């Protein structure tokens, strides 16, 4: 059986990759994708912990995280469409009308 630490380190690497994507990309869609990568890293950690303590709770929480991710994707993509309709671009640097 693979030790828990291996899964946690993999989860950390995936989470950092997602963070990197949010920082680096200049495209709203790719930033949303990076958030999905981060959510998946968290899911992996939950399931690895659940396996280690021998409880199914990890899987239940993963189920809820997937639901929240679906809702987030739906609202986020609707926002992207609304923004694109107004500005004809996906570059977040151009959405500055709320900047003070």
């Amino acid at each position, binding site marked *: *059986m*693979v*030790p828990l*630490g*291996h*899964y*946690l380190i*993999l989860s*950390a*690497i*995936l*989470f*950092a*990759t*997602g*963070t*990197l*994507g949010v*920082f*680096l*990309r*200049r*495209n709203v*869609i*790719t930033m949303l*994708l*990076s958030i*999905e*990568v981060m959510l*998946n890293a968290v899911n*992996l950690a939950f*399931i*690895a912990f659940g*396996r*280690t303590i*021998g*409880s*199914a*709770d*990890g*899987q*239940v929480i*993963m*189920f*809820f995280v*997937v*639901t929240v*991710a*679906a*809702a987030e994707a*739906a*609202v986020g*993509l*609707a*926002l992207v*469409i*609304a923004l694109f309709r107004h500005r004809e671009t*996906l*570059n977040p*640097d151009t959405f500055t009308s709320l900047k003070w």
Partner: protein
Amino acid sequence: MATDLLLFYLFGGVAVLASLLVVLRRNPMHSVLLLIVSFAALAALYITLGSPFAAVIQIIIYAGAIMVLFLFVVMLLNAHKEDEDLAAAPKGAAGPLRAGALLGVVLAVELVWALVKAGGTRDGALAAGASPDVTALGDVRELGRLLFTDYAFAFEVTSILIIVAMVGAVVLAKREI
């Protein structure tokens, strides 16, 4: 024993590589398709963790529903060629970009360091304290019982969340209501 580790490194490597490419590719279409590869590798890891239900959820909902939604939007907005205007971005953007990359790397190192540091003590204790019954974990009946008893309230709140998200998406994306 060795096959377990081998499978972990195989699918873990695929997941990390695909996720890195998701972040680094310029074309959002490639990013979406590579993210599906990453999800598939993670689903395989869930199976090695004795959670076939989580693996199936991952494939059907994530790779199936959510990624199709993303693909739809990428095609709808015709956004295949991102960052054409990156060159036209303000000159000061390079500094924050480098700082962001640095922050991401620091986060990765910090997380791995903390986990390795804690792993020596807690991993052993966790593994010794509980005897993981892997066959029971994969039992979908047990999962359903948990969802509708211990987590019944959270489950019902989830349905409200989905309705709110649905109405919100329609309101936001519609031209005029």
